[in-house]
C-alpha cells in the first residue's frame, strides 16, 4: 500500500501549492516540501528491507483484459532512482523558494514540479510496463509545462515544444516497443518479463522491440542523434534544469535501459547500438560543451556527454560495467545537480551566465566558488571526489572490453578522448568563471546568496566529497543492491575504493587530465580551430523538419479535407468502391458467380413498388434543386421502403421506418422554411460526371454484393437470436430483445448519440438565435406569403381529436414491444409526432404554456433511466445491463410479464421524445423570433362558435 502512496503523494500534493499560495511563498514552499518529504520518508522506511535484498510488491487489477494492472515494486534500482528523485526534489523545492522572483507564479511552479515528481516516481516503481508508459508520457507532459514555465520567453516556449516533440515522439516509439516486448514475453509485468530472457531474445520480435525501446530511451536521455533538445530545454528556470536535466528526467531513459538490461542486453545488436550511441554522444557532447559560452549550455552538453558515458557502460554488457553505470548515475546526479544550482546562483547574483562576461568571482562569492570548484573537479574526475571513482571504473571497463574487438585499442582511445574534453570543459568552468581578474562590468554586484540558495548545493557537494573519500561506506551497499537489481543477478564481487594500484585506467586518467589542461591552456587556439569547423545547428534543422512536416500535412489535409462535403463523400465512396471491386475482381470464378439459392418470384405488386422506387429515386436526382419536391420524393422513397419491410416480414423495421420518415419530413419542412427553396448550381460538369460515375459504380457494387449474398445459403448470427430471444431475454419480439437486451449496450450508446445530436441541433440553432447570425435572421424576409390564419380551425380540431388516440397508440406500441412489433423507440417517435401536431396546430408558444416540459432534462433523464437500469444489474452483482424477467399475475389483468428491460425502454422512449421535441422547439423559436408574433392566447384564430357568441352578445 505504502508503495502506491509514495507514487500518489506527489499527485495528491499537487493540489496544495495553488491553495497554499494564498498564505504566502513560505507556506507554499513548506507545504510542497512536506509532501515530498513525506514520500521520501515512506521510501526510506522500505530502504533497510530493500538493501537486504528483498523486493517489495503491491498489485491491483485495473484492466486485466488489456494486461494493464496497477502494480508497483521496489528493488535496489527503484530505490536508488526514487531516492534521487525525491531527495534531490526536496533540495530543489528549497532552492526554488529563493530562486523564483515575486513575479513568478510559485503555486503553478510547485504544482508542475510535484506532477513531474509523481510521474517520475511512477516510472521507477512501476511493475507493469503499460503503467510505466502512462507515467512516461506524464513526465513528457509535465516537463513541457516546466520547461515552458516562463511562457513570456520565446526560447522557453520553443524549447518546451522541442522537448515535447522529441521526448513525446520517443514515447510513441517506446509504446510500440513495450507492446512488442510484452507480446514476446507473454506478460506485461516487469517482474515476469525480467525472468524470460531466453524467450525474448529468441523471439523474432526482439530486434524491432529493441530498436523501438532504444529509440524511446535515447530520445528521453538525449542520446545522439536525439541529443539536441536538451540544450534548448535550458530556457527553463534553473531549478528545473537542475532537477529534470541532470538528476531525473534525462535519467529515465538510462533507468529503462538498466531496468531491461537483464532481458535486452548481451546480444550483438544491443552492444553495437547502445555502446556506439553512448560513445558518440559522450565525445560529441563533451566537445561541444568545451565551446559553450552559456553556463547552462555548457552544463547541458556536459550532461549529454555523461549520459552517453552511462549508456556506453550499459552497452558494454558486462556486469562490472553495469556496476560502474549505476555508480556513475549516483555521482553524476550529485555533482551535476549541484553545478546547475551553482550556475543558477551565478546567474541570479551576477545577472548573467555568459562565460565571456564572467571571471574573477572567487573573492566576490567565496562560498559559491568553493562549492562550484569542488563539484566541477568531480565532473572532471579529479581524485578524492566521487566523479573520479566512476570515471576510473569506466576507463577500466573500456580498456578491458575494447568493444570493436576485445582488447582493441579504439574504445579505450575514444573513452580517453571523452575524458580529455571532460577535464577541459570542467576546468574551463572553474577558471573562466571564478579565476582571472575581477571585472568592473558585471550586470549586478556579485555577492554570495542567502543560505537558502547555497545550502542545497552544499549538501550535494558534501555528498560528492564523502562518497569520493569513503565510497564503500556511503554508497557501497546502494550500488551493490541497485546493480544487482539491474543485472537481475548477484552483483560481482567488488570493493569501491580510491586506490586500485597502478592500472591502465589510472594512466588513461593522467593522460586525460594532462591533455585536458593543455587544451585549456591553449584555449584561444583550440577555439579558433573549432570555429573553422562546421557547426550544424540542430534547432535550425529541427525547425526545418517540423516546417516541412507541417507543409506536408497541410498539403495532404487541405487537399483531402477542404470543407467540401462532396469531396469527402467522393473520397469515402471512391475508396469503398475501389476496395470492393479489387476484392471482387481478385476473387476466383466460383466466388464471383451468383449462388445457387432459389430466388423468389416477383409478383406484380412487387414490380410496381420496385418501379415506383426506381422512378422516385431518379426523379429525386433530376429534381433535387427544387428542395420541396425533392423532400416529397424522398418521402415517397421512404414509404415504399417501409412497405418493402412489411412485405419482407419485418414489421418492426416498417414501423420504425414510417415513424422516422414522418418525423424527418416534418422537421426538414420546418427547417426549409428558413432556407432557400432552390439549390443553386454549384458543381461543374466534371464534378457531376465524377460523382455520377462513383454513384453508379457504388450502386452496382452494392447490388452485385447483395445479389451474391442473397443467392447463397449462409448461416448468420440471427439464428442464435431467434433461438435464444425467448428463453434468455423473455421476449418473443426478437428485434426488441436484441435492442434492449442482447445488444443493450449498443442501444445505450445510440440513445446517448441521439441526445448529443439533439443538443448539437439546439446549439447550432442557438447560434442563429443569439449568435453572430442573429442580425441576419432578424433582417430576413420570408420568401413566401403567410396565411393570415396561422392556426386554422380544421387543423386544431383534427389534432385535438387525434391526440388521445395517438398517445394511446404510443403506449400500446410501447407495452407490446417486448413480444410483438413495437418498443420504446417507435413509441417515442409516435408520441413525438402526436405532440408535434399539437404544436403545429395551435403554435409552439401556446402549446408550450400548456405542456411546460424541459426537453433537455427529458433527454438527460432518459439516458439516466437507461443507465440506472444497467447499474441496477451491477448492484445485484451481474454485469452491466443484464436483464431479468418474470411472470406475475393480478386479478382482472391476468398473467403478465415484467422485465427489467422495460425501464430501459422507458429511457429510450424519453430520449427519443426529448430529442425530436428539442429540435422542433428550437426551430419554432426561430420562427417566432422571425415573425415577431405575440404568442396567441386562443387555440385557433377563427373560432366560429366563439365568434357566434360574441356576435350574439353584441347584438343584444
Amino acid at each position, binding site marked *: 500500500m505504502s508503495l502506491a502512496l509514495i507514487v500518489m503523494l506527489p499527485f495528491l500534493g499537487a493540489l496544495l501549492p495553488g491553495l497554499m499560495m494564498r498564505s504566502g511563498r513560505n507556506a507554499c514552499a513548506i507545504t510542497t516540501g512536506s509532501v515530498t518529504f513525506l514520500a521520501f520518508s515512506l521510501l526510506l522506511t522500505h530502504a533497510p528491507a530493500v538493501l537486504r535484498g528483498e523486493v517489495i510488491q503491491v498489485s491491483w487489477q485495473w484492466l486485466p483484459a488489456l494486461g494493464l494492472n496497477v502494480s508497483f515494486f521496489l528493488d535496489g534500482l527503484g530505490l536508488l532512482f526514487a531516492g534521487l528523485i525525491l531527495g534531490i526534489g526536496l533540495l530543489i523545492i528549497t532552492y526554488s523558494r529563493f530562486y523564483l522572483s515575486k513575479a513568478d507564479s510559485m503555486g503553478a511552479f510547485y504544482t508542475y514540479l510535484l506532477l513531474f515528481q509523481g510521474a517520475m516516481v511512477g516510472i521507477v516503481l512501476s511493475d507493469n510496463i503499460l503503467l510505466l508508459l502512462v507515467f512516461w508520457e506524464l513526465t513528457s507532459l509535465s516537463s513541457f509545462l516546466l520547461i515552458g514555465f516562463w511562457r513570456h520567453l520565446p526560447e522557453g516556449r520553443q524549447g518546451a515544444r522541442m522537448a515535447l516533440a522529441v521526448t513525446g515522439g520517443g514515447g510513441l516509439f517506446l509504446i510500440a516497443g513495450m507492446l512488442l516486448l510484452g507480446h514476446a514475453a507473454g506478460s506485461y509485468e516487469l517482474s515476469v518479463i525480467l525472468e524470460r530472457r531466453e524467450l525474448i531474445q529468441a523471439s523474432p520480435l526482439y530486434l524491432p522491440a529493441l530498436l523501438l525501446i532504444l529509440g524511446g530511451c535515447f530520445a528521453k536521455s538525449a542520446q545522439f542523434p536525439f541529443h539536441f533538445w536538451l540544450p534548448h530545454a535550458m530556457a527553463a528556470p534553473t531549478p528545473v534544469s537542475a532537477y529534470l536535466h541532470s538528476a531525473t528526467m534525462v535519467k529515465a531513459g538510462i533507468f529503462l535501459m538498466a531496468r531491461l538490461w537483464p532481458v535486452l542486453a548481451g546480444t550483438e545488436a544491443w552492444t553495437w547500438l547502445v555502446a556506439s550511441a553512448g560513445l558518440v554522444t559522450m565525445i560529441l557532447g563533451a566537445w561541444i560543451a568545451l565551446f559553450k559560452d552559456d553556463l547552462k549550455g555548457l552544463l547541458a552538453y556536459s550532461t549529454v556527454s555523461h549520459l552517453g558515458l552511462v549508456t556506453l557502460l550499459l552497452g558494454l554488457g558486462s556486469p562490472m560495467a553495469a556496476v560502474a553505470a549505476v555508480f556513475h548515475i549516483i555521482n553524476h546526479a550529485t555533482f551535476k545537480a549541484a553545478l546547475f544550482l551553482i550556475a543558477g546562483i551565478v546567474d541570479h547574483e551576477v545577472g548573467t551566465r555568459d562565460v565571456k562576461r564572467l571571471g574573477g568571482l572567487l573573492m566576490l562569492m567565496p562560498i559559491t566558488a568553493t562549492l562550484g570548484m569542488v563539484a566541477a573537479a568531480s565532473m572532471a574526475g579529479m581524485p578524492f571526489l566521487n566523479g573520479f571513482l566512476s570515471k576510473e571504473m569506466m576507463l577500466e571497463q573500456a580498456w578491458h572490453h575494447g568493444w570493436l574487438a576485445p582488447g582493441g585499442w579504439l574504445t579505450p582511445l575514444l573513452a580517453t578522448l571523452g575524458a580529455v574534453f571532460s577535464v577541459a570543459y570542467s576546468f574551463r568552468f572553474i577558471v573562466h568563471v571564478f579565476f582571472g581578474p575581477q571585472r568592473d562590468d558585471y550586470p549586478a554586484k556579485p555577492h554570495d546568496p542567502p543560505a537558502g540558495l547555497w545550502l542545497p548545493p552544499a549538501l550535494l557537494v558534501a555528498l560528492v566529497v564523502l562518497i569520493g573519500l569513503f565510497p564503500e561506506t556511503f554508497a557501497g551497499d546502494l550500488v551493490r543492491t541497485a546493480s544487482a537489481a539491474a543485472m537481475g543477478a548477484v552483483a560481482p564481487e567488488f570493493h569501491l575504493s580510491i586506490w586500485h594500484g597502478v592500472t591502465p585506467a589510472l594512466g588513461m586518467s593522467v593522460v586525460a587530465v594532462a591533455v585536458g589542461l593543455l587544451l585549456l591552456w591553449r584555449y584561444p587556439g583550440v577555439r579558433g580551430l573549432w570555429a573553422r569547423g562546421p557547426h550544424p545547428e540542430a534547432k535550425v534543422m529541427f525547425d526545418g523538419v517540423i516546417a516541412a512536416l507541417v507543409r506536408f500535412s497541410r498539403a495532404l489535409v487541405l487537399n483531402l479535407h477542404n470543407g467540401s462535403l462532396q469531396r469527402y463523400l467522393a473520397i469515402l465512396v471512391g475508396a469503398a468502391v475501389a476496395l470492393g471491386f479489387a476484392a471482387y475482381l481478385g476473387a476466383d470464378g466460383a466466388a464471383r458467380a451468383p449462388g445457387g439459392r432459389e430466388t423468389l418470384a416477383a409478383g406484380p405488386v412487387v414490380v410496381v413498388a420496385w418501379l415506383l422506387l426506381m422512378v422516385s429515386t431518379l426523379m429525386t436526382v433530376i429534381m433535387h434543386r427544387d428542395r420541396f419536391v425533392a423532400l416529397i420524393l424522398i418521402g415517397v422513397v421512404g414509404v415504399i421502403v417501409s412497405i418493402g419491410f412489411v412485405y419482407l416480414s419485418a414489421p418492426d423495421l416498417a414501423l420504425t421506418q414510417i415513424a422516422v420518415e414522418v418525423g424527418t419530413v416534418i422537421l426538414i419542412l420546418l427547417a426549409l422554411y428558413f432556407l432557400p427553396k432552390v439549390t443553386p448550381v454549384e458543381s461543374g460538369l466534371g464534378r457531376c460526371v465524377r460523382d455520377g460515375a462513383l454513384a453508379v459504380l457504388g450502386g452496382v457494387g452494392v447490388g452485385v454484393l447483395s445479389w451474391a449474398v442473397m443467392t447463397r445459403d449462409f448461416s448468420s448470427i440471427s439464428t442464435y437470436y431467434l433461438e435464444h430471444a425467448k428463453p434468455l431475454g423473455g421476449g418473443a419480439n426478437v428485434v426488441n430483445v436484441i435492442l434492449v437486451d442482447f445488444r443493450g449496450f449498443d442501444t445505450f450508446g445510440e440513445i446517448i448519440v441521439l441526445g448529443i445530436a439533439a443538443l448539437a441541433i439546439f446549439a447550432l440553432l442557438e447560434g442563429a438565435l443569439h449568435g453572430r447570425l442573429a442580425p441576419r435572421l432578424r433582417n430576413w424576409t420570408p420568401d413566401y406569403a*403567410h*396565411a*393570415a*390564419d396561422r392556426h*386554422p380551425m*380544421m*387543423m386544431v380540431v*383534427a389534432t385535438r381529436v387525434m391526440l388521445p388516440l395517438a398517445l394511446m397508440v404510443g403506449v400500446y406500441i410501447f407495452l407490446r414491444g417486448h413480444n410483438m412489433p413495437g418498443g420504446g423507440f417507435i413509441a417515442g417517435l409516435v408520441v413525438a409526432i402526436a405532440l408535434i401536431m399539437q404544436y403545429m396546430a395551435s403554435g409552439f408558444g401556446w402549446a408550450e404554456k400548456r405542456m411546460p416540459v424541459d426537453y433537455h432534462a427529458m433527454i438527460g433523464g432518459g439516458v439516466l433511466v437507461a443507465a440506472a437500469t444497467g447499474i441496477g444489474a451491477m448492484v445485484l452483482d451481474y454485469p452491466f445491463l443484464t436483464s431479468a424477467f418474470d411472470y406475475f399475475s393480478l386479478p382482472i389483468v391476468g398473467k403478465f410479464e415484467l422485465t427489467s428491460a422495460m425501464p430501459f425502454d422507458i429511457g429510450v422512449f424519453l430520449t427519443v421524445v426529448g430529442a425530436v421535441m428539442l429540435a422542433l422547439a428550437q426551430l419554432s423559436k426561430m420562427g417566432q423570433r422571425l415573425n415577431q408574433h405575440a404568442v396567441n392566447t386562443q387555440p385557433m*384564430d377563427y373560432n366560429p362558435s366563439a365568434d357566434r357568441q360574441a356576435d350574439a352578445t353584441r347584438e343584444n
Partner: protein
Amino acid sequence: MLFLLELLISLLIVLGGFFVLVGSIGLIKLGDLMPRLHAPTKATTLGLGGMLIGSMLFFLGVEGKLSIHEVLISLFLFITAPVSAHFMAKAWLHLNAKHRPKLPPTGSNRGWSTYDASHAPEPGWPTSDDPDRPAQ
C-alpha cells in the same frame, strides 16, 4: 344467401374501384388545382370507403368475425383528407394572389380567413361598427 352477400361485396369493391379510377383520371384531366383537388379528396375517399365496407362485410359474413380495422382506416381518411385538401387550397390561394379580387364575398363581416387576419375585417368591407353593414 352467401351468393347475395358475395354479390354485394363484389359490387362495393367494383364501385370503389370505379371511383378510385375516376379520381385518378380526374387528377390527370382537370386543369387547375382547385378543380383538381376534388378528384382525389372526394372521389378517392368515396372509392376507398366502398372497398372498406366491402372488406368489412367480407370478414363479417364470410369469415365470421367483426373487423374494425376498416372503421379506423375510414376514420383516419375522413380526418386527414379534408385537412390536407384545406391546406392545399390555402397554399394555392397564396401562391396565386391574383385570384384574390375574383373571390366572392364571404357573406359575413369577416373576410377570407387565410387572407385577412381573423378579427380584422376585409378592406372594403364595412367594419362591425359601421351602421351600413349588410344584414346577416
